[in-house]
C-alpha cells in the first residue's frame, strides 16, 4: 500500500511516516502543496493523507484535482479546525474520511486500511486471525465455516484488533474508534470492558480459544496465534 502524506508540520509528518511504515505501508511525504501536486501527478498512490491548511495552498484543491483526474485514490483529510463545515466540504469534495487533530495514529492507520479495503479490493476481502475470518464485505465473522453472531460494535471491535495485531489497544483507542467523540473516557471504559467481555465469550464459545489478552492497566491485545 503506497501512501502519500501531505502535511506541512514536519514533526507530525514524521510521526505518521514512522507509524505507517511500522504498519507495512510504503510512505512518502510532501510538506507543501506544490510538492504534493507534483508527486500526485508523477506517481501512483493508493492512499493520500491531506492536511487542509498548507503553507502555499489549500488541501481541498488537491482533492478536486485528484477527483478531476479520475484517479482511484483513497483520501483522508486532516484538519485542526474540527469544524463541521470542513468535514462536510471535504467529504463533498470526494474525500473518503475525515480526522480532526489531534488524532490517534492507530485511528489513522485503521481508517486507511478500511479505505483501502473498500476502494482497492472493492470490499472483497477477508482478514484472518488464526482460523477466524472476518469478511469485511458482508460484515461476517466465521470460525472454520461456522458463523459467529456478533453485534455491530463487537464486529467493529474485532476488526480493529485484526487490523492492528501485535499492538496493545488502550481502552481509550477502542472507545474513540467505536464511538468517536460521543462519550467521555471514564464512562466509555466500562462499555469497552463489557463489549470485550461479550466478544471474548462469543469467540471462545465458537472456537474454544480466547484470542484477546488483557494487558494489565493498559488495554488489550490480540494473542499471537501461529
Amino acid at each position, binding site marked *: 500500500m503506497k501512501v502519500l502524506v501531505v502535511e506541512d508540520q514536519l514533526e507530525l509528518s514524521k*510521526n505518521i511516516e514512522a507509524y505507517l511504515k511500522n504498519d507495512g505501508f510504503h510512505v512518502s511525504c510532501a510538506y507543501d502543496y506544490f510538492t504534493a501536486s507534483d508527486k500526485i501527478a508523477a506517481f501512483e498512490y493508493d492512499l493520500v493523507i491531506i492536511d487542509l491548511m498548507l503553507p502555499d495552498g489549500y488541501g481541498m484543491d488537491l482533492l478536486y484535482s485528484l477527483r478531476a483526474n479520475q484517479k482511484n485514490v483513497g483520501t483522508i483529510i486532516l484538519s485542526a479546525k474540527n469544524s463541521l463545515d470542513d468535514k462536510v466540504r471535504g467529504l463533498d469534495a470526494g474525500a473518503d474520511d475525515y480526522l480532526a487533530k489531534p488524532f490517534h495514529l492507530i485511528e489513522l492507520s485503521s481508517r486507511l486500511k478500511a479505505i483501502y479495503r473498500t476502494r482497492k479490493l472493492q470490499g472483497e476481502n477477508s482478514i484472518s486471525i488464526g482460523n477466524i475470518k472476518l469478511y469485511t464485505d458482508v460484515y461476517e465473522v466465521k470460525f472454520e465455516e461456522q458463523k459467529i453472531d456478533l453485534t455491530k460494535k463487537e464486529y467493529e471491535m474485532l476488526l480493529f484488533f485484526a487490523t492492528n495485531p501485535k499492538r496493545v489497544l488502550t481502552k*481509550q483507542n477502542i472507545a474513540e474508534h467505536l464511538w468517536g467523540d460521543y*462519550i467521555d*473516557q471514564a464512562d466509555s471504559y466500562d*462499555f469497552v470492558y463489557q463489549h470485550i467481555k461479550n466478544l471474548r465469550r462469543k469467540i471462545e464459545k465458537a472456537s474454544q480459544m480466547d484470542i484477546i489478552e488483557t494487558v494489565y*492497566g493498559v488495554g488489550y491485545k490480540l494473542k499471537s496465534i501461529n
Partner: protein
Amino acid sequence: MRLINKITLIFLGVSFIVFLIGGLVTYKVIGDEIKKEEKWFLLERLTSTEKYIGRKQPQNPIIRDKVIILPQKDSILTDNYIFSDTIVYHRTLERPELHNKLEVGKKIEGRFYKITLYDIIIEQDDIIDGIVESLFKTYLILLALVLIMGWILSKRLLIPFEKTLQSIRHFDIKETEPVEFHKTGTKEFKRLNQFIENMSSKIRRDYQSLKEFSENASHEIQTPLSVAKGKLELLQDTPLDENQQQLVKEAQKSITNISKLGNMLTLLAKIDNHEFDTRNQINGSEILEEIIEDYKELIYLKGLKMDLDIEEDVQVSINSTLFEILVNNLLKNAIKHNVNTNGYISVEMNRAYLQFKNSGILLKSDPNLLFGRFKKENFKTNSLGLGLSIIKKICEVNNMSIDYSCKEQEHILTVYFH
C-alpha cells in the same frame, strides 16, 4: 438626588444665611438712621419748646404728652444734651413703647429749666416686620427663579451628559463601531466624552486581542498536541513493560484532555463571535430523537431507565449546529452525572421547553454556580467543567432561558424557548 437639585439646595441654603445676615445689617442700618433722624427731630422740638418757654416763662412744671418742662430754682448745668432710650406708655397705641429721650438743662430769660423730650417716629417691631417681610418676599422670588432656572438649565446644559450616559448604557464590547457622542461645547463634558471614547476603544482593543489570543491559542495548540500524541503512540509500538505502558497511557489521557479543553474553549469563543448566528426553523423533536438514538447504547450499558415525552414537530428557531451541541451536552450530562443503580433519565419536549430530569447525587453547592466555567461539583478528572457553560452560552445567544434545580436525588435542567 439629582445634581441640579443638590446645587439648588446648597444655593438656597447659602442665600438663606446671607439673607439672615443681610436682615440684621439692614435692621441695624435702618435703626441707626432712624435714631439719627429722631435726634434731629428732638432737637428741632427743643428749639420750639425753648421759644415756647421764652414766651410763657412758666413758674410751675409743665408735664404734657412727650414734653416735661421743670423750672429750676438753682442754677444747673446747661446745654448738656443727653440722649437715651426710655419706655413710655404710648397713648394711641395703648401700650408701653421704646421712645427716644432728650434731657437737657437750659437757661432761658435768666431762668433755669430742665427740659425732657421724648418721641418715636417708627416703632422697633415695625422695622423688624418690614425687614422680615421684604426679605421673605425677595427670598421667595429668588427661590422661584432659582428653581425655574435650575430646571431649564438642567434640561439644556445636561443634555450632553445624558447623551453620554445613554452611549455608555448601549456600549457593547463585542461591537467594532466607535461609540457615538453628542457634540458639546462644555469643556467638562468634552473631556468626559474624550475620556470615555479612549477608554472604550482601549477596552475593545484589549478584548479583541484577548479573544483572538484565546481563539488562536486553543486552535494552534492542537498541532503540537497531535505531534506529542503521535510520539507517544510510536513509543507504544516499541517493546515496553507494563509500567512504561501505563505511563504512556496516562500521558495520552492528559493530552486528550487538553485537546478537548482547547476545542471547547474554541467553541465558546466561536459562539461569542457570533459564528453561529444564522438561525433557521428546525424540527427540534426530530434532532432530539436522533441524538437520543445515538446514545441509546450507552444509556442501556449504564443501566439507566429512559423516559421520553417528546411532542412531535416542535419548531425551534436556532442554529442547527448549536442545537445539536446543546442537546448533546444536556444528554451527556444526564448520563454522566447519574447514579449507578436504578438510575433514570426522563426527557420532555414541547413548544415551551425542553427538560431533562435525571437521578443523581445531591448537590453540595448551588446548582446555578455550575454554569460558570471550570466549575464542577466533584473533581472527577475526566470532567472539564465546561459543559454547562457551553449550554448556558448557547441559551444566552438564542434568547432562551435555562433553569437548573436539584431536589433531593433528582436534577432538573430546563431550557425555555421563547
